[in-house]
């Protein structure tokens, strides 16, 4: 009896191929396909209802979609920059500490140890207008006697969400930048001192260029994170009030699971992914560039 002879490399790769297609490829192809149908979760047979580019056209012309898109970009821009600045400050301070640095480093990581859902609940409580910590504190201190509607007012709600994001993720920047600080060679810094730099000038002309690759890595990681932000927002405001904190993925989640319009949700998802891809590619470009400036890598 002749057995089917597969080339050895294929045999060896087969398990990986099977697993990858089961968990990645098939869902991907399925979701892509469904974005061209009017698929609704409540009507399974609608999966065969081919509508062509209709979902995409609808998304591109949908004001709500673009509002969520814009808000996500805003969140990305504000949160990332704030986190970068705070993380940088934090890392610089920790790196100057002479004793207990290990403890501080561990403490810096605390916010990263909590699930975003819990962080969401936490800040939902902190910013609650009646029983929340912030309002209580403000009132006890006599700064205000009103209940500030942190999560109800559109602008304040966005602020609260950014605050929560920054609280959770500043340590990502902090840790990576700290790693960068440790990796800076001592020689150029000493040369800068001898060359007459003040500490500010040393930082600006020597430390910072050496830190840029680390900052861009953190940016790339965090831009992916924020571009798919869902949990904190979902818990804290559920995209409200009146959709004023609606982000891309809360909108997509709502469309897909609450409104059950999965085909349309998938179409929006595919457009949104470009946002994440754009930022990742952008930051990796900057990363390579800053490394080349330092004469590292090609």
């Amino acid at each position, binding site marked *: 009896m002749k057995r089917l002879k597969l080339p050895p490399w294929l045999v060896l790769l087969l398990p990986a191929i099977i697993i990858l297609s089961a968990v990645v490829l098939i869902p991907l192809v399925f979701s892509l396909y469904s974005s061209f149908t009017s698929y609704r979760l409540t009507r399974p047979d609608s999966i065969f209802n081919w509508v062509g580019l209709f979902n995409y056209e609808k998304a591109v012309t949908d004001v709500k979609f673009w509002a969520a898109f814009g808000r996500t970009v805003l969140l990305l821009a504000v949160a990332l920059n704030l986190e970068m600045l705070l993380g940088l400050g934090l890392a610089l301070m920790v790196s100057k500490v002479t004793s207990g640095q290990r403890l501080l480093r561990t403490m810096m990581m605390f916010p990263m140890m909590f699930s975003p859902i819990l962080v969401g609940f936490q800040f939902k409580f902190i910013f609650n207008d009646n029983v929340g910590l912030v309002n209580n504190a403000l009132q006890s201190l006599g700064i205000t006697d009103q209940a500030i509607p942190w999560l109800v007012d559109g602008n304040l709600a966005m602020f609260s969400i950014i605050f929560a994001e920054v609280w959770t993720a500043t340590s990502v920047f902090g840790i990576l930048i700290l790693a960068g600080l440790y990796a800076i060679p001592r*020689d*150029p810094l*000493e*040369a*800068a*001192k*001898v*060359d*007459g*730099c*003040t500490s500010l*000038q040393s930082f600006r*002309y*020597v430390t910072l*260029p*050496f830190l840029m690759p680390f900052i861009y890595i953190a940016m790339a990681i965090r831009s992916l994170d924020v571009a798919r932000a869902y949990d904190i927002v979902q818990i804290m405001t559920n995209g409200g009030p009146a959709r004023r904190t609606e982000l891309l993925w809360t909108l997509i989640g709502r469309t897909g699971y609450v409104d059950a319009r999965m085909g349309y949700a998938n179409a929006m998802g595919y457009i949104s992914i470009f946002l994440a891809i754009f930022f990742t590619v952008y930051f990796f470009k900057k990363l390579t560039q800053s490394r080349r*400036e*330092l*004469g*590292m890598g090609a």
Partner: protein
Amino acid sequence: MANVTLRNVVKKYGVLEVVHSINLEIADSEFVVLVGPSGCGKSTTLRMVAGLEAISGGEVQIGGRVVNDLPPRERNISMVFQNYALYPHMTVRENLGFSLKVAKQAQPVIDDAVDKAAEILSLTPLLDRKPGALSGGQRQRVAMGRAIVRHPEVFLFDEPLSNLDAKLRTQMRVEIKKLHQKLKSTIIYVTHDQVEAMTLADRIVIMRDGHIEQVGTPLEVFENPLNTFVATFIGSPPMNLLDAVVKDGKLAFSDGTLIAMPPGYSQAEGQAVTFGVRADNIMPVGHALPHGEHMAEVEMEVNLTEPLGTETLLFSVLAGKEVQAKMFNPRPVQTGERMTFQIMLDKCHLFDAETGAALKR
């Protein structure tokens, strides 16, 4: 331009004291070389002058001003680091002009100074490259250029040539010497290479274990070493040292060999001494240089030869100690050959057998 004074300077790392109260006067526009074995505290001393290392005790003055508590940028110094310490993200031009840029000089002034320095060090064609695209010797020149652009009062060099190959090192040595003649600034130069020290220095400072062993011109330290450490550290090959005892006004080695007392010494009968002679001053009969009147002869077996071209180095053993001798106008020598050697006693030294300190003639 400025003189530099170190007064009882001490460096401690915690309880560990690595520089023990050293004193040094360096005159304006003098080229002083700190030399000594690895770990003796040369870099530490230099870095204290630069202000990169806190001074644990004593006082450093530059140009008559105590600088102990001044940051490097207020000391008017330049330093060339062992590993060049160039800024990798800046071009050669930016590296050279950096100190002027942070001093907020006008761009034309910077360009002018950079062009001049580049000219002196033949860096002009490399100005737009980054350090990563330079060879070791070129980086070294950039590091030097960066130092001279500022017109400092004092130049500090920390083993600037140790990463270069032998040929380049010789070349750069000449460059540095020329540079000093041109700029006439005070230079403190650290090296562990005694040849570099001899060729560059106006005065050599020999250090060991955080102490200064001797300070003097290259010839002084070569001809009159204050102790056996300096005697073996300066000069290549190192001075031969043999244990001897004074007997009937002569020197007796442990194997019974007797030689005349070097002229000028009058040591007590029975005193234990260390006899020092350089390879240049112990030569096989018939292959010696013209010599003085005070001679001694010993017979030794040649164990190893090292032909160097104009001369051959012969390795033998006398009284259980290795002795290196020089054969001028060399002929081939078989190992195991017994030869008679002449010792030029006028050039020999006696040291205290216990302390190693040079004995007075």
